[in-house]
């Protein structure tokens, strides 16, 4: 058990495809490993179809909650900031964990770009916002979290994801209805790497990254690569996992917002703070305020949607 928390240049590949488990694993490793300076931990993982929103985002504004529920696509909120992304088995997640001082997003991204360009003959480039673009299409979005002793930078890599599902899931009609100071997503057109070079597969990519990772860190010991089954560490991780799964974290960690419903040209403004409806402004005849005030927004969401009539 203890060996899983050792420091040094290492690669870990998660056997789980559960987004909550993987997010919990990521945080667990980041917080508990004794990170050594000038070394990196590479964590590779992928999830069953899910939508992951950033720490301070509003899931209602970022995704079609109804569609997600219908299709049983998981909704998760991660600990790092940034925007929303759609994960499925064609989307590789990469996390690089280092000490706080060694945190450097650009270095990580340039390494990826160089590795992939060289191996697969691509023309990827890194943008100002720390995304990776292939011409005008986005293939990678990144986010990071900095704590006192450690920092991690994670990003996605669209290898051969189902882009239709991606677009459908991330489409939100509520976006215009919501005013808040939550982090907005910057949307871009996306592209799979496999669309450009159809020899690229998930397996090839991780093999390539593992090999190049040790070279990048000048690490002679290339055996430090393991598959990790997070279920074995369930006890240690369960607090994180439970938090990630909880409705509280998912919905109530949203920054305060105002949701405007239009009922026959009459606007009703619903103020939500910490996931709870705190105020409703509007015509009393349309909406029975008593029923809604103090309720959890996501619980009464479908009722509110019903009010939406033009």
């Amino acid at each position, binding site marked *: 058990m203890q060996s899983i928390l050792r420091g040094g240049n290492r690669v870990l590949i998660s056997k789980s495809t559960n987004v909550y488990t993987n997010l919990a694993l990521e945080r667990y490793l980041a917080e508990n490993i004794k990170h050594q300076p000038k070394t990196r931990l590479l964590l590779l993982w992928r999830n069953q179809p899910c939508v992951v929103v950033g720490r301070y985002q509003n899931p209602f504004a970022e995704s079609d909650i109804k569609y997600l529920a219908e299709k049983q696509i998981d909704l998760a909120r991660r600990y790092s*900031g940034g925007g929303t992304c759609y994960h499925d088995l064609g989307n590789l997640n990469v996390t690089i964990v280092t000490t706080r001082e060694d945190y450097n997003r650009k270095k990580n991204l340039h390494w990826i770009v160089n590795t992939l360009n060289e191996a697969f003959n691509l023309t990827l480039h890194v943008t100002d916002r720390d995304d990776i673009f292939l011409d005008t299409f986005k293939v990678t979005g990144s986010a990071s979290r*900095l704590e006192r002793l450690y920092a991690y930078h994670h990003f996605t890599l669209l290898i051969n994801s189902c882009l239709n599902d991606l677009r459908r899931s991330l489409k939100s009609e509520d976006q215009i209805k919501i005013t808040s100071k939550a982090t907005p997503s910057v949307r871009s057109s996306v592209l799979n790497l496999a669309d450009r070079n159809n020899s690229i597969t998930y397996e090839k990519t991780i093999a390539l990254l593992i090999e190049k990772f040790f070279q990048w860190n000048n690490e002679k010991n290339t055996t430090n690569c393991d598959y990790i089954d997070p279920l074995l560490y369930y006890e240690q991780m369960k607090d994180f996992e439970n938090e990630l799964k909880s409705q509280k974290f998912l919905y109530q960690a949203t*920054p305060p917002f105002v949701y405007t419903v239009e009922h026959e040209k009459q606007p009703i403004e619903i103020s939500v703070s910490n996931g709870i409806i705190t105020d409703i402004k509007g015509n009393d005849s349309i909406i029975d305020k008593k029923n809604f005030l103090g309720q959890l927004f996501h619980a009464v969401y479908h009722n509110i949607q019903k009010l939406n009539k033009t």
Partner: protein
Amino acid sequence: MLARPVCLDTLLRCFVFPSSCFRNTFNRSSFNQFFPIVSSSFSHGQSIFTIPISSNNVSTIKFSFRSYSISSSRSSPVVQFKLADIGEGIREVEIIEWYVQVGDNVKQFDKICEVQSDKANVTIISRYGGTIVKLHQNISKAAKVGEPLVDIKLEHDLDVLTGTKTATIMTDDTFDSAVYKDSLANILVTPAIRQMAKELQISLNDVQGTGKDGRILKEDIIRFKSAKSTPSKFSSGIPPPSPTAVKQTSRLRPTPVPTSSSLKKASDHSVTKAKNDRNEPIQGTRKTIIQTMIQTSSIPHFTYCDEYDMTQLEKIRKQLKNQLNNKQKQKQVHSYMPFIIKACSLALCDYPILNAHIDSKCETIAYKGSHNVGIIIHTKHGSFVPNIKNVQQLSIGQITYELNRLQELAQNANLSTEDLTNGTFSLSNIGDIGGTYTVPVVLSPEVVIGALGKIFRQAVPDEDEQNSDENKEYCSSPIHSMMSVSWSADHRVIDGATMARFSNRLKFLLENPLHTLIN
């Protein structure tokens, strides 16, 4: 004699011995109020004696000070905790969440808030322990780097952190990697000190540890930091002697206070109102002085005193004075000192061990090639000990020029670190102010220090006279100019014989100035 803010050097502490044997105008300047007056008697005719100094004159006074003073509250200071540079060129962040509220108690490293910038979320942790007094930013507000985040009322008076008052978000790889690398080397230092050094942008390799096994302590960092700043920063200066300061030094004295000052107070009591006590926090130079003082108390000193006959030198000085025109005369203010400095250098050639450095662990004697003679200069900003480099190569004229240059710089508190460091041998001319014999304190890592007393005229029995006549009443006693000199040395390295021989050599060179000039 006051202290000098030079890194790792110690305080010159002098005890003035007034002696009834010597006609000496005891100068009751304010300077003397600082120091204990111990009476002693010297037997007539004996001019050489050694006074061992016990090194357990440990100060038991607790000094607490504030390194910040935003508010003038003396009970516990309120510190403004600012948003520090996160790195990556980020100038502005958004406050996402507060982890504390007004009134909360925080410890060092507790979470204060979370900020977000460009998809990076950063948890900001507290640098201090205390109570949150005020939150400066609202959630979802944009905060610029350098703007205040919270006000914290500190629990304890700080003696840890000097310099920056910003939040401890450690900078990223744009941070000076050299400094970071040093902290990885095998330097004995606790994580808290490492962090402190990082924040103050100090390389731990440069700091000399004084703790166990050469461990670097908080005091070492503070001392290094304040020594790094040039003296011009301490422009506020050491405050003038106050009644409180006198009271404090009185506790150091091993013998009872002479009653002159207390008598004065008693007589005034009926006339004037009792003065209020005044507390003054120790700041700046004085804090360094205290630190170095405590360090130097571990060096076993011995003192060797003598009198040098300056008559010949006096004659030469008069000669030179008469020959110079007015303008040049102004420059030749301390015309004895350059000569003495040069003579010291010549004597050091014969006794190189006195021009050495000793490390704190006493493992190596580093014989220094160049004679960098330090001169203690008293200014209104405090006392400094700049040194003249490579005296062995300089002529007396060049030494004079250097001395004047350093004195001018010192008066304006403009001495550079270069001037203040790497001294190998120090001299103090207390004769300027008054006094004869003192027990100066060696300025570590040097091994010897000399204090030159006042030159006074004295009748000296003529030893040359072959007076077979036993009738001593009629022996001639020409008047000579005598200068009392006190040498203190580190007894671990220097023995009495070496010191005595050096002194004799110097004595010869000063009493026969032509020999100095020839060399």
